[in-house]
């Protein structure tokens, strides 16, 4: 091994290690505290490890952890499904059909996502109050759909435009209607894009805080990020163990989803469609 490759390998390895520590460090710290019986163990030096924090979080009704989790899952899932459905239809239209303003529509939709959340949340509160929607799942699902649809549309559009137009033509000639072209040809080929956008939308909704804290009032509609933030307020002191256990549990659905979807989010599905 030459000196140059040694230095190169060292730099690659050390940078990788640093990035790994940087991203995983807080996560490991969280897991550590969630398993410790006391948060000040570094000062006192006395510590016992157990799952008691997890048990408490999951069993204590006053904490409403399971309510928050259910709310989060319902709201994020519905949003992801609705957004994926509409954004993929829109992406198909924008990437395939000729209509006036075809290039303008995606830009307009993107422009909508440029408003800071804080600038619209006040008005949303007023609007939803009048409509009687405050503290309901719909109070979050509706703004989440509007908030995430631009990014989903753009992700899907970039995938759809990679699919050759000849495939649509061939399928139309072969007797498939527009809907069949969509679900038999385009969707299967755009699956990586559709899964990526669905996953991103789900994660964004699952983590969202501002709308969730402003538009919901109690555990019947509040989501996990808000719920976990409220742990401290409820008990006067900061229950680090419970907080960290809840945070660790909150990341479980995301980890599972990513593991399931990652095998779909692979490139190379387009091989052999047209002469490459």
């Amino acid at each position, binding site marked *: 091994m030459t000196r140059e490759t040694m230095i190169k390998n060292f730099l690659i390895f050390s940078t990788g290690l640093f990035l790994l520590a940087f991203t995983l460090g807080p996560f490991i710290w969280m897991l550590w505290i969630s398993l410790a019986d006391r948060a000040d163990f570094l000062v006192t030096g006395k510590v016992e490890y157990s799952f008691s924090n997890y048990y408490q979080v999951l069993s204590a009704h006053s904490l409403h952890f399971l309510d928050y989790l259910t709310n989060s899952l319902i709201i994020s899932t519905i949003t992801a499904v609705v957004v994926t459905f509409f954004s993929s239809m829109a992406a198909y239209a924008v990437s395939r059909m000729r209509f006036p303003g075809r290039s303008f529509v995606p830009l307009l939709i993107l422009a909508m996502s440029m408003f800071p959340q804080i600038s619209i949340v006040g008005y949303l509160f007023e609007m939803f109050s009048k409509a009687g929607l405050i503290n309901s799942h719909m109070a979050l699902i509706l703004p989440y759909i509007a908030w995430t649809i631009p990014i989903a549309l753009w992700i899907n559009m970039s995938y759809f435009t990679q699919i*050759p137009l*000849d*495939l649509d*033509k*061939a*399928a*139309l*000639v*072969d*007797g*498939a209607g527009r809907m*069949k072209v969509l679900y038999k*040809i385009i969707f*299967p*080929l755009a699956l990586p894009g559709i899964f990526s956008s669905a996953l991103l939308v789900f994660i964004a909704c699952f983590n969202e805080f501002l709308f969730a804290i402003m538009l919901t009032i109690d555990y019947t509609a509040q989501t996990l990020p808000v719920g976990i933030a409220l742990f401290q307020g409820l008990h006067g002191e900061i229950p680090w163990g419970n907080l960290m256990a809840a945070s660790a549990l909150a990341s479980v659905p995301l980890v599972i989803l990513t593991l399931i979807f990652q095998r779909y989010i692979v490139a190379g*599905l*387009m*091989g*052999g*469609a*047209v*002469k490459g």
Partner: protein
Amino acid sequence: MNATKITIKNLAKSFITFRGRVDVLKGIDLEIEPGEFFVLLGPSGCGKSTLLNLLAGLEKPSSGELYFDQELVASATGKFSGPFERDISMVFQSYALYPHMTVEENIAFPLTNLPQVPAPEVMSAKVRETAALLQIDHLLDRKPAELSGGQRQRVAIGRAIVRNPKVCLMDEPLSNLDAKLRNEMRAHLKDLQKKLGVTSVYVTHDQLEAMTLGHRIAIMNNGVLQQVGTPVEIYRAPINQFVAKFIGSPTMNMLTGALLEENSALYLQADGLRIKLPEATAASLRAKNLKQITLGVRPERLYVKSEGEQNLTLPVSVIENVGPEFLVYSFHKQGQIVVRTPEEPTGDNLNLALDAEHLHLFDEQGNRISC
């Protein structure tokens, strides 16, 4: 047999763009006979693919009418049938195979869209029969990505013929193949069309493909039909300079100049080159009283002649040995002049003879002068 006649009446297509209206097709009139292998030939952007898309039902005409047999399938304002209602199939230049489906599923796809989907065993038998015809029956379980270019093209053809369509449309289906494979597939395609007897319309920019495949050829330029005829008709009597130059390789030699009468012979004076016209040609030109013409002559109709009657003398610029014959190039102000000859010429100059029968004369507008 499922042979359909196609009648195209005054068909036009325009697209509206930011830069204004673009007329891609201008008043096309054409009849394609049942069972005919018809080739649309022209340079890129001449409108041939648009015409094919109109035949396919992928585009709507701006004016004019289109009939399959007696049935109106498309008109600008009235009726418009989609591709499937017309019962056409299409082979694309890019193959356009569905990458997530196996070869079997690809070929079976048109059958799954029929109003009455055949039973699985009938469908499978039909797919196998088609695949056997194209010699791809051993590839049915593969995905398109695992196939070679030629195999993919066969799958695309299989998908097009599996449901015995009324009309088969082909959009430059061979241009993505390498030269050797293209020749093989060309012969295969011709044989297949003959066996199936389906009316076929084939779009290409390759004059060799057009000459070898087509029963008849239509040559297009700028959205206008230039000439329709059999390959031999078009090769022997091109209707204008565009057609004359487009058909044949190397292209037809063209020389433009003034006609001069001297010592009771008629000469064409083209930028320093003086060509004595054969007596029969001269007689008919005299009768027409023309001052200026373009003379066209194919490379194989310039005969090297060292003695006797000679019509012109050319300086030799380059000689190419192409195997069975030699191509002699002479660079001239009006472009190059090519002579095709079986013997390697010697000397700096080439004495050539012409024969009246194989000369093509064009007037100042580029149209053929009949002699």
